[in-house]
């Protein structure tokens, strides 16, 4: 079963859209591409001020006790305007891991800061091409972490990280204070994601879960983040579809609007289809948090949203012709973001496998 948004949820969508459209402009985002480690500070200030950082966290720790549906709505709007920092998703993932698997002490220590946005969290599960590695390269021995987690979104500014590591004979999910951890900035095609490699060297870490439960926990956190990211991707794809539509009705070639040519109009109609399928899967997945089919629903949302955003980026640029590939028009901001979000939380290859394992009864 899917859901209809109620009035409160619709208000969240409308209001966050209004605010983001007023405060985030491509002209502020373009310069961020060419430096490493900077993010759009006004975006993050807005997220904190509006309570979006607290939205889906428990009231007891400074949260607003709403859920995936509401945070997804924000992410959708952030995807439309191109969010200027990755922390909405990374903080949420880190906070959920602590909320679900942490001790009371750990919650007390970290959740209020993550909820207010004054503390930045990161989630480091992947290792190179493995989104959820069978044997993580980072090792945990006697509560000390060693090794490198590569390509962690938001890590450059993160205070705390959730790390999936190889513990003594079994995987663990660990909580790590990053204050003294070495970070190598990554020069990426989407620098405002503040990507870094985290170098652990005898770094103190606290185990949240271990054994096969750690793997399940890591997947659950990934799936939660994937649903948020899928909303963001769907928002980006929707924006591109609208940009393409608006261009096609105004731009003329051979004496008529280019939108009258079926190669253009049918392509935009196909984008509409991809966006609506992604949106439907997102709404469904957000409504299934806590249910046994949640990971399945998250995978479907993730796959359709990644396809929608990548395709919309390709097609919207193509429909624009030469102007589409210029720096100034900024469509490449979406192109870059589409690829970034396609990698964060695991690529389509990963989610296809997760989904089929479940459908074919090969996984719990």
């Amino acid at each position, binding site marked *: 079963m*899917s859901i209809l948004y109620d009035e409160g949820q619709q208000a969240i969508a409308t209001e966050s859209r209004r605010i983001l459209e007023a405060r985030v402009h491509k002209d502020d985002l373009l310069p961020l591409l060419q430096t490493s480690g900077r993010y759009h500070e006004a975006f993050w200030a807005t997220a904190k001020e509006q309570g979006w950082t607290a939205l889906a966290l428990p009231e007891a720790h400074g949260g607003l006790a709403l859920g995936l549906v509401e945070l997804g709505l924000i992410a959708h709007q952030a995807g439309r305007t191109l969010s200027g920092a990755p922390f909405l998703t990374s903080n949420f993932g880190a906070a959920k891991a602590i909320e679900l698997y942490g001790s009371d002490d750990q919650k007390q220590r970290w959740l209020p800061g993550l909820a207010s946005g004054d503390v930045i969290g990161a989630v480091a599960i992947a290792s190179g091409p493995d989104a959820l590695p069978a044997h993580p390269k980072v090792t945990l021995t006697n509560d000390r972490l060693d090794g490198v987690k590569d390509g962690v979104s938001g890590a450059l500014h993160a205070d705390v990280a959730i790390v999936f590591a190889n513990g003594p004979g079994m995987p663990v999910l660990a909580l790590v204070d990053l204050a003294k951890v070495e970070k190598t900035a990554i020069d990426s095609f989407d620098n405002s994601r503040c990507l870094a490699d985290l170098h652990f060297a005898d770094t103190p870490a606290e185990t949240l879960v271990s054994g096969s439960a750690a793997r399940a926990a890591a997947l659950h956190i990934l799936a939660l983040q994937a649903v948020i990211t899928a909303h963001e991707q769907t928002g980006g794809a929707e924006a591109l579809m609208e940009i393409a539509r608006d261009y096609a009705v105004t731009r003329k070639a051979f004496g008529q609007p280019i939108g009258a040519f079926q190669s253009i109009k049918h392509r935009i109609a196909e984008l509409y289809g991809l966006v609506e399928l992604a*949106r439907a899967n997102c709404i469904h997945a957000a409504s299934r948090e806590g249910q046994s089919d949640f990971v399945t629903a998250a995978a479907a949302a993730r796959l359709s949203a990644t396809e929608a955003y990548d395709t919309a980026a390709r097609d919207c640029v193509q429909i624009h012709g030469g102007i589409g590939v210029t720096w100034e028009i900024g469509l490449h901001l979406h192109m870059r973001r589409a690829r970034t979000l396609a990698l964060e939380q695991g690529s389509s290859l990963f989610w296809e496998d997760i989904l089929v394992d479940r459908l074919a009864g090969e996984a719990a």
Partner: protein
Amino acid sequence: MSDLEAYRAKAAAWCESVAPAFGKAARKGLSVEEDLALGRRYQKAKFDAGFAGINWPTDLGGQGLGHIEKITFEAEEMKHGFPNVYFGISLGMPVPVLMQFGSDREFVKERVLKALQGEEIWCQLFSEPSGGTDLAGLRTRAETDGNGWKINGQKVWTSWAQYSDYGVIVVRTDPTVAKHKGLTYFWVDMKAPGVTVRPIKLAGGDSHVNEVFFDDVKISDDHRMSPVGGGFSVALATLMIERYVATDSAGFGPHLDLFIDLAKDLMINGRPAIEDGRIRQQIARNYAMRSGLDSINVRARLMMQAGMTPGPEGSLNKLVAVRSRQKLSELAIDLQGVGGFHFDEHASPKDDWASSWINAPTGRIAGGSDETLLNTIAERILGLPQDHRPDKGVPFNQIPA
């Protein structure tokens, strides 16, 4: 147990109880005529059990329940392969349109009751040889004839016309005005003098569609279901019903579970095909697409239950689902290798991959081709410009053929 769960249980129990008499096994080896006769008995049993016209008004023989109960029943019904295909169009579009637009209410009630009990079948006479995608370009004409009308011309692709008692029809009553303005909507008696039905054999070997010829067929003016010249909008209303009735995220082909079972069963050089990334990718992509459509459809029903109008995304159903079904069916055949050649002309596209594959092109064309649907989405939903149409605004009888 919620009310709906209770309803589902009741529906399931009834379907189980009649499965031996009407289910897949009972139909095996029957000729089309025998199967139709069985189908009429099934429809009557369904009516008697209170499962016909589930969401239709009680004063017309329906059950007065919601759309949600209807699709709940249909989900159970689908499991048994009952012979209900002959009534799908009839109860799907023409009879609902008759309920909405028929002027003689006693006549309407009599027809609806007989249709619900499988005694009478209605067909829908829209498409013509000259233009499948161009409804407003139709050429079959009705001229005034005394107080009534006289119909001449030809329709085509009419499903189940050979078994139909009545049909709804759109004809041109004024060729001197722009093409979509000269149309009028009627019902006709399919047994009337001058009506000739000729079945068309399709690519898969069966003949459920027909050509229908009208040769001076006389009807009185009370057959009229729209204002004179106002037939186009009633026809569009019919098509809207059709688009909404026709939702199946499997594209009217096999359920994805059947593909997964196939991939689990087939061993390729000692490994199950389900372990092959190419197969896995198609399963995952199809699942994501189908679950998206399912979610769209569930939300549409929730909106209708809440008295709202569903969003336009419902128009994606047929386009996306049937196209995907076609390729997935090809892959299912590929997967079987030299075991994939087998073909049974009478197998069901819902559970046989070869049948699904060979009938898929019909699904991509009937009820609005892929291209028509894309144009509709582009123009009606997204506000993109119409294609160049040299015939636009030109009186019908001045458009070059």
